[in-house]
């Protein structure tokens, strides 16, 4: 059973990444760049340069491993699944920072610091939103959170949850309005010196994280594998795919403001909003 579940997780990650690349219309470019030369910068941190995309991919896989593919059935049936996902989120900030740190060049480093500065206030609302979703389930386990949505999905019970989590998803996948690491004004920032297979692998990892974050959002807010007629995994795949398309669309359409203004929005508007969301969700769950 464990082997089967591990295969399902890997298969979902693989097929999902391919689907994400199609949505992003970057699949051919990524293939083309795997075959191109990888240029060395002067005195790079080689270890972290190679580890950063690997970490990013690993975190996407780790996040997906706690997602239940059928009611009561996850590869890692942890009583604290939400916390495991939360640590994946926090480690993404470290990974993106290392990606910008390692080439030893100004633009990547600016991108790395920007992302670290934006990442902290993004993680805080994320934690409040996920804890709010755990309240009606009275558990931090994702399996219990799915069970708690048998009658009504969290997206309806806690209407602010999914919109707030989509902002987190955009930040975790370095997309559109929350892409402060790889912005155009710093020549794609942390990726400015990345070339060849290294660049392609980083883009692949970014798309893999899109699968993972969408699967978590589908589990926490859209009832995960719950649904009539079709088997559980199919419902999860459908919901994940719909959220991936939504996140790509939002990333392509919404403008990105300057980092200092986004900091203000995050600390002054979104953080209190997520407090309020937690308070309301707590009162409703009583």
């Amino acid at each position, binding site marked *: 059973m464990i082997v089967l579940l591990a295969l399902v997780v890997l298969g979902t990650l693989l097929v999902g990444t391919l689907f994400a690349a199609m949505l992003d219309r970057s699949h*051919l*470019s990524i*293939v*083309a760049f795997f*075959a*191109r*030369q*990888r*240029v060395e910068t*002067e005195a790079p941190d080689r270890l972290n340069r190679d580890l950063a995309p690997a970490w990013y991919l690993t975190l996407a896989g780790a996040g997906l491993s706690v997602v239940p593919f059928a009611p009561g059935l996850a590869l890692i049936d942890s009583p604290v699944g939400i916390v495991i996902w939360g640590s994946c989120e926090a480690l993404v900030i470290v990974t993106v920072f290392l990606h910008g740190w390692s080439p030893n060049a*100004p*633009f990547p480093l*600016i991108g790395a*610091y*920007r992302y670290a500065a934006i990442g902290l206030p993004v993680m805080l609302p994320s934690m409040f939103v996920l804890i709010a979703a755990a309240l009606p389930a009275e558990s931090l386990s994702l399996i219990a959170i799915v069970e708690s949505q048998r009658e009504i999905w969290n997206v309806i019970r806690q209407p602010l949850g999914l919109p707030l989590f989509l902002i987190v998803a955009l930040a975790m996948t370095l997309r*559109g*309005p929350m*892409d402060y690491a790889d*912005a*155009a*004004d*710093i*020549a*794609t920032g942390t*990726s*400015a*010196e*990345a*070339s*060849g297979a290294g*660049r392609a692998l980083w883009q692949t990892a970014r798309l893999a994280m899109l699968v993972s974050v969408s699967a978590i959002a589908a589990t926490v807010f859209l009832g995960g594998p719950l649904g009539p007629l079709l088997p559980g995994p199919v419902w999860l795949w459908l919901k994940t795919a719909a959220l991936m398309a939504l996140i790509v669309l939002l990333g*392509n*359409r*919404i*403008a*990105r*403001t*300057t*980092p*200092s*203004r986004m900091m203000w929005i995050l600390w002054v508007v979104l953080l209190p909003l997520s407090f309020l969301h937690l308070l309301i969700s707590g009162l409703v769950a009583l």
Partner: protein
Amino acid sequence: MMSLSRLMSRAPAPVFPAIGPGRQADVERLLSRSGLRAAATPRDAAILLVAGDIPGTAAAPLARVHDQIPRPRVTVSWGHDEPDAIAARIAEAWREVCAGGEGEGDRLPDEPPNKWKGVGPNGQGGKGMMGGVPYGRPMAMTGPDIRDGLQLDRYTARFGPFAPMLPPGLVLEVTLQGDVICDVTVETQPFAQPADADAPDLCAARMLRLLGLAGPADRATAGKKPRGVWMRGAVPGGLGSVDGAGDARDRLSRWLSGTPVTASVPDIPALLKGAEWSEAMLILASLPPSAILRACQTPEAA
């Protein structure tokens, strides 16, 4: 392997443009076509598009940009051909790149600008723990933050003349603390561009790209309505105010509604000093290229 190279060549051709005098509008319109992709960094490109006659002063930077493109690479020079002919030549160059092979060699010797060999018995070269130029590499030195006087590292570097976020030809020497601009001087003025570079659709597209909206920017360049959310609102109010032309947000609004903007001669260093890097790039993109050129030609800025 044959099929792999054919699959690769169906990807949009990644082009890094080196834009010369008078060719900014042509290049921007060309690269918004489907089948071509404007690379934001030479590392992301396979084809160097050299448009127009690059002046001798920019020859060395052009050679450096050329050598920064991963191999195999191809240079396409755009003299006075029709855009369709150039698009076809780029497509052919991309097929050539995807088929493999050596491509063009380096134009400059592949060695560091300064040897990894210092002065003194231990070869350290610097003074104390900070600053100085150890091994010929300038190190950051602390200085007062221009906003609150806190002692922070200052780093001076040159940007341009082919930096994709700056007007073509402009070289700025910038002293940064983090990404806050403490000091900026215009080293070389931008290349002269005819009035078509001031076209509202192109000006709006430049700002939209900085806002992370590459797709809507391409639509704007193609004469369609850009489909973006919060386009005006994302530009902070009061940014880059210029007498008679409002702030950056006002200018974007006018460009999006198809109205040209004529700005008086702005004081570029004064506008950029104290701004964060992303704000400074938005300010520069929010000024018509002709206004930036006039500003850099005035004696104060030189």
